[in-house]
């Protein structure tokens, strides 16, 4: 736990008066290297929306441990499978989250991991298929910050 820091003290105190509902900052321009990472992954090619489903809580109880479950639509045969899925988070200090690499032996293009989100932001997935086609999906996660949960 450690000693309460000044920010925590400030938030805790401020919270009792901060009741105004304000628009979320989730659609603001990415503040990190998310765009660069995606460009590097896709080689600058456009990714189509679709084929990817990922489960993330609408509101993360704590940004330190946010469960993420991925499913990509694919037969996962030697001829047609998902090769790689890049995950980036556009509001973290660094955008990189993970790159998942599948093979036909994976059987399904499904995986679950737990991620850290420093604030309310978008998580973006880009999938690269064995034929080189690209698909993408994004989700906004609201992250609870402040109070006793820090």
């Amino acid at each position, binding site marked *: 736990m450690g000693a309460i820091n000044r920010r925590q003290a400030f938030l805790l105190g401020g919270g009792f008066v901060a009741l105004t509902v304000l628009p979320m900052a989730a659609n603001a321009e990415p503040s990190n290297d998310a765009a660069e990472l995606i460009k590097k992954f896709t080689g600058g090619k456009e990714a189509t929306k679709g084929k990817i489903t990922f489960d993330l809580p609408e509101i993360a109880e704590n940004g330190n441990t946010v469960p993420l479950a991925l499913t990509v639509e694919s037969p996962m045969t030697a001829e047609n499978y998902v090769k790689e899925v890049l995950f980036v988070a556009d509001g973290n200090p660094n955008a*990189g989250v993970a790159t998942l690499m599948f093979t036909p*032996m*994976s059987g399904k293009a499904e995986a679950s991991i737990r991620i850290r989100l420093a604030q309310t932001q978008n998580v973006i997935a880009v999938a690269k298929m064995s034929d080189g086609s690209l698909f993408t999906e994004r989700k906004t996660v609201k992250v609870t910050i402040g109070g006793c949960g820090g």
Partner: protein
Amino acid sequence: MADKPRIKLPKEAKKGEIIQIKTLVSHLMESGQRKDAQGKPIPRKIINKFSCEFNSKPVFSCALEPAISANPYIQFDARIDEEGTFRFAWTDDDGSVVTAEEKIALKA
């Protein structure tokens, strides 16, 4: 990273069956973003790679960044066409690798 990794998969599967594999290892996943009590940055130290092979053939792997939670949990699937051995490996920033093996048999 001295603790034994935790791994869950079935002991046997039918030929062609797709099984689910759950893994959990103990690791702080120090992000490099934190500061110590003196205000000095704590250097990054994470597991940056995980891989799973079956009978020496790649099944699933991932490159991990500091945005992965402490005590990384990784769940994925594998198609079983023959009996054999899974080999799991977690690679630390310091170069050390923790490995584990699990066998699976074919159901008659």
